[in-house]
């Protein structure tokens, strides 16, 4: 850009309730993912079905003795063994000293040291905050029109999904008028998370509660049983992590400062329209 850029048009993009609830989500989701890995570490294996088939988990993370007093991390998925030393199965605590046996490493868990009790304390407190925040968000999104106005894609947007996919793959982002709205892939990602992954992670989490299993007999069989529910809880959490990584990546490559500022102050500077008008 050689010519001085014109003052960009600014729009009030994110209203206060959405901004507040977004940052509560950031805190909750981070803590839930990391305390969840701490809880997983207490029994680092996943099963399908009602109970644990201890001799054949479909995923397990463990360690083997290397013979000279050391250990090496091994992850087994559906019978295939992978060396995951240094990250999964065996890793250095705080990056120092010798490898110790630990499914997820200390940098990925809350607290960083092994403590199932504290992991649960963190997890359930922030699970409540997260669920209450989520209920408030859905209520607000419906009542304020945020859902229909901003989150649901229009028919023409859906028809042009191919172009949106191409734009994303080329790291091209909307400019001018088009940047006022969420793009269609963004819409679909948000909807899949809000009405797909999040309800699944919550219901599968609740299905692990022996008391909630008594709500009515056998309801957790709909998820395939308690150990399937534990697996689904883990997979849904992995899906949320994937969303989070893509979300942060898109923020970083689409004008990080402008995006982050808009989620703090609400004001978003529309990127100048570089397209040639036809």
């Amino acid at each position: 850009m050689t010519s001085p850029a014109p003052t960009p048009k600014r729009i009030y993009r994110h209203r206060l309730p959405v901004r507040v609830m977004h940052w509560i989500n950031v805190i909750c989701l981070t803590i839930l993912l990391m305390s969840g890995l701490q809880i997983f570490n207490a029994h680092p294996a996943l099963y399908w079905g009602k109970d644990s088939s201890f001799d054949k988990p479909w995923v397990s993370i463990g360690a083997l003795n290397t013979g000279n007093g050391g250990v090496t991390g091994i992850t087994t998925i559906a019978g295939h063994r992978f060396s995951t030393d240094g990250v999964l199965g065996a890793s250095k605590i705080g990056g120092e000293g010798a490898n110790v046996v630990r499914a997820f490493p200390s940098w990925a868990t809350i607290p960083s040291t092994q403590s199932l009790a504290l992991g649960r304390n963190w997890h359930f407190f922030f699970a409540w905050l997260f669920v209450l925040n989520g209920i408030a968000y859905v209520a607000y999104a419906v009542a304020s029109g945020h859902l229909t106005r901003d989150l649901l894609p229009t028919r023409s947007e859906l028809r042009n999904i191919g172009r949106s996919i191409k734009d994303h793959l080329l790291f091209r982002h909307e400019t001018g008028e088009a940047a006022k709205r969420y793009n269609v892939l963004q819409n679909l990602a948000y909807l899949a998370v809000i009405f797909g992954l999040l309800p699944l992670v919550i219901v599968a989490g609740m299905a692990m509660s022996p008391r909630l299993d008594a709500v009515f007999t056998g309801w957790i069989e709909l998820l395939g049983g308690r150990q399937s529910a534990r697996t689904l809880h883990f997979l849904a959490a992995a899906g949320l992590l994937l969303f989070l990584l893509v979300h942060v990546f898109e923020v970083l490559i689409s004008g990080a400062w402008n995006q982050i500022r808009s989620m703090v102050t609400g004001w978003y500077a529309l990127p100048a329209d570089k397209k040639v008008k036809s």
Partner: protein
Amino acid sequence: MIRKTISSGRPKTAPSRRTALRAALAGVGTVSLAGCDRLSNNAAFVDVLKSAQHLSHGAHKLVTGRKAMAQEFSQADVAAHFKANGTLVPRDADYQALLKGEFKEWKLQIDGLVETPAAFTLADLRAMPSRTQITRHDCVEGWSTIGKWKGVQLSHLLDQVKPLPNAKFVVFRCADSMDGPSLDGHDSKYYESVDMDDAYHLQTVLAYELNDKPLPVNNGAPLRARIERQLGYKHAKYLMRIELVERFDQIRGGQGGYWEDNGYEWYAGI
């Protein structure tokens, strides 16, 4: 084993040679991780975290009702081997003597806030009406295993000893010392407690049989509690005495159980 003692391992700050933004993000991450570890060592903060259990317990009572039944399974669902956890063989001399005598000298004492304290032999309990149930045992660690239990309902015993109106909790006292032999001399015998809803629940059974055989030592011989709507650590093994109390904050660590005194929630329905 899980212990509440936490050392604060603070990750070192990331080296430079990164963009300012990445360094800043990494810095935030490092600071917040160290922050979480510091908060985990702060008793008052952990108490706030643990207060969520009251919300969970209240909500669960609201949606499930006091008498809601845990799922029961069929014979075909019973696991070939019922995984045992925690103490596998109590090393305590008094327990060892009872085991050697095939529990003929063993008695279950029931006392505390009751009208008529009593003691029952294993033969007494076996002569009482029994309940058999096939249920799923969910460990706090995350695994589950299904077993068939036979025993006497706790409500049946409570009807005989007649709890006083101020009895609010049932405390299970066990034979097994939990902390290492080097710590013998200080009382680390397992104990647990439940409220009267769980005590009188239909599926709350003091089991003397597992999978049609006398309860194995690994699983709590001669008698263990089944608290089917809560996690495994509530199901006290090696029962010796049942005490009815109004409050449990005067007992040992004051949290209502061995694992509770080590940081776990008293309400283990989640």
